[in-house]
């Protein structure tokens, strides 16, 4: 990223000077950079003649939160940290960071401790997250070293709570331990995430493709996998395939 008086070609970050609280996606330097936006109209082949081509903006996900988290979030975090300590596991080693955003609590878990943390969350009477709603994959190509994220939502019917666990794995070593022994419902969900993202869930009883054909090549929900499609003609005009249309992001 360039500084405010960036040199030509490097681009200018307008938000350094502006008090940009109202600009979407502005989180200062905190959080986790997932994308650098250049220009305003998504054209990266010189087609943007609007004069905004030099804009450079860093898009960041919400970063780690500090105590107190508010509401029952602190209670859950305390209980989880206490229960992990009892098992001789330093909470700081297992929980990478804790994010509170939009009224939701997310624990980023180191993958080697995922099974232990999930078992604790399920079995500890004060936590008792007995229902796992499955796993969802997200591919962040620019999150170097942890491009692939597996996201779990755990629901506690006993305490009427919902939390999120997030686990990252690098593209080069896409292994995450399976939660099927803890939550059998994740059987199909992990197969789906493997199918679409190529995350290998170690310890899954039969990790095969589930929705795509067995001999399919590639993992379609990854960002580098093209959508495909053909241009269509409508009332004489030619409309390009969806992935060829201009993106304003």
């Amino acid at each position, binding site marked *: 990223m360039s500084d405010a008086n960036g040199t030509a070609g490097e681009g200018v970050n307008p938000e350094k000077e502006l008090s940009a609280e109202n600009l979407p996606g502005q989180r200062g330097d905190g959080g986790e950079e997932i994308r650098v936006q250049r220009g305003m109209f998504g054209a990266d082949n010189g087609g943007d003649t609007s004069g905004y081509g030099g804009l450079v903006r860093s898009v960041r*996900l919400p970063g780690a939160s500090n105590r107190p988290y508010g509401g029952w979030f602190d209670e859950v975090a305390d209980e989880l940290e206490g229960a992990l300590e009892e098992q001789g596991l330093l909470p700081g080693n297992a929980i990478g960071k804790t994010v509170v955003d*939009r009224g939701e609590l997310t624990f980023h878990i180191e993958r080697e401790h995922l099974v232990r943390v999930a078992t604790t969350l399920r079995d500890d009477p004060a936590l008792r997250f007995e229902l796992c709603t499955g796993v969802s*994959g997200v591919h962040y190509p620019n999150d170097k070293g942890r491009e692939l994220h597996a996201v779990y939502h755990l629901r506690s019917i006993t305490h009427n709570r919902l939390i999120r666990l997030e686990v990252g794995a690098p593209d080069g070593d896409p292994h995450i331990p399976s939660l099927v022994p803890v939550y059998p419902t994740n059987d199909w969900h992990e197969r789906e995430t493997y199918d679409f993202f190529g995350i290998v869930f170690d310890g899954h009883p039969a990790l095969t493709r589930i929705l795509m054909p067995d001999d399919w090549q590639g993992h*379609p929900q990854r960002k580098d996998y093209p959508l495909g499609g053909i241009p269509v003609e409508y009332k004489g005009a030619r409309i390009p395939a969806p992935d060829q249309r201009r*993106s304003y992001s």
Partner: protein
Amino acid sequence: MSSSDTSAASAASARETTEGTVYTVTGGDWDEVVETAQRSDDERIIVNMGPQHPSTHGVLRLILEIDGETVTEARCGIGYLHTGIEKNLEYRNWTQGTTFVTRMDYLTPFFNETAYCLGVEKLLGIEDQIPDRASVIRVLLMELNRLSSHLVCVATGGMELGATTIMIYGFRDRELILDAFELITGLRMNHAYIRPGGLAQDLPPGAVDQIRELVKKLRKNLPEYDALATGNPIFKARMQDVGYLDLSGCMALGATGPVLRSTGLPHDLRKAQPYCGYETYDFEVPTADTCDSYGRFLIRLEEMRQSLRIVEQCLDRLQPGPVMVADKKIAWPAQLAMGPDGLGNSLDHIKKIMGTSMEALIHHFKLVTEGFRVPPGQAYAAVESPKGELGAHVVSDGGTRPFRVHFRDPSFTNLQAMAAMCEGGQVADVIVAVASLDPVMGGVDR
């Protein structure tokens, strides 16, 4: 893969060509197949049920290992209806997303739309700004949709037992509800009516009267299902103690909805984690303690009656007002009207933006071509669909298109319980058990 490996003879062999990899799929060696069959118990066979069998709720393939009439192992083959909706969403703007998600579980379009929109609204931070009227109409449509979905479940479930009358009755009543949907949204299914920020448009004139009329008709018709099926000895003999799954099984397998409530646990997200103002409506959460298909059938019947109660409350509290957030940066600028070639932008609106206000034209153009931006982050919104917990995990990277949307479809999760329900039972009971899960392959495969 070595060619001398006999076990690999039936596997697909790969060959590189200029067009890409070509797989040659061949059957097994017949001599081997015959030999294996002779060695094994001749009563034990493996049967493929589906993917085109009429009793498999769409393109579901059941792979059953049966010993005589007993199912010893059961597995599902799914994916025949995979349409890549989640991938496609990443190439459309946030508003266009509803058009896709409504097609996931095609029997519960309003639930898909609401779950998605609640997720997007959470990301935008505008949950408090959704007008009351929009929330009431959302609840109204969702509850009517719950009725229509349950009616299909009861109707097809009855047909699979040979009760064609209940099938005709179920589809007759569902058609009445779809007529109301058509009046309100223009379409019987796949509505894309609920939008991030509110609704696509207000209720048309006459809609409230038609729904009141509909409620009256349904109040009259619903007891017919009781009269036909509830006390029917054949129906009970086929349903009771079939498809058994107790509370710990449901928890482990993540089963929600009527399957979970048939174990006696009154877990319903409308009560536990209310959304769209459900905490202000007066309704009961029916349960059963039989853990079987019959219990689930009774729960669905009772839920239909409760849904009618909620619909009536919605109609009573409908107040005139906006149906879209006031924030012009998010609210879709269109004013829809019926034209000679169908529903489209109203001529008055076009006249205004083209003729009198250049700012309005620019604004309209920007919103329609670019769409609005959603601040980066992720959100999970869950609604209680007729089948269970329908969750939408929505991720934004600050752009005008979703970065990732994942749907936790209850059909997908509940269908995993099929093996636990069917193994050890009779072949004929597999159909009853699957019907009591009420899977819809559009939702399972997405």
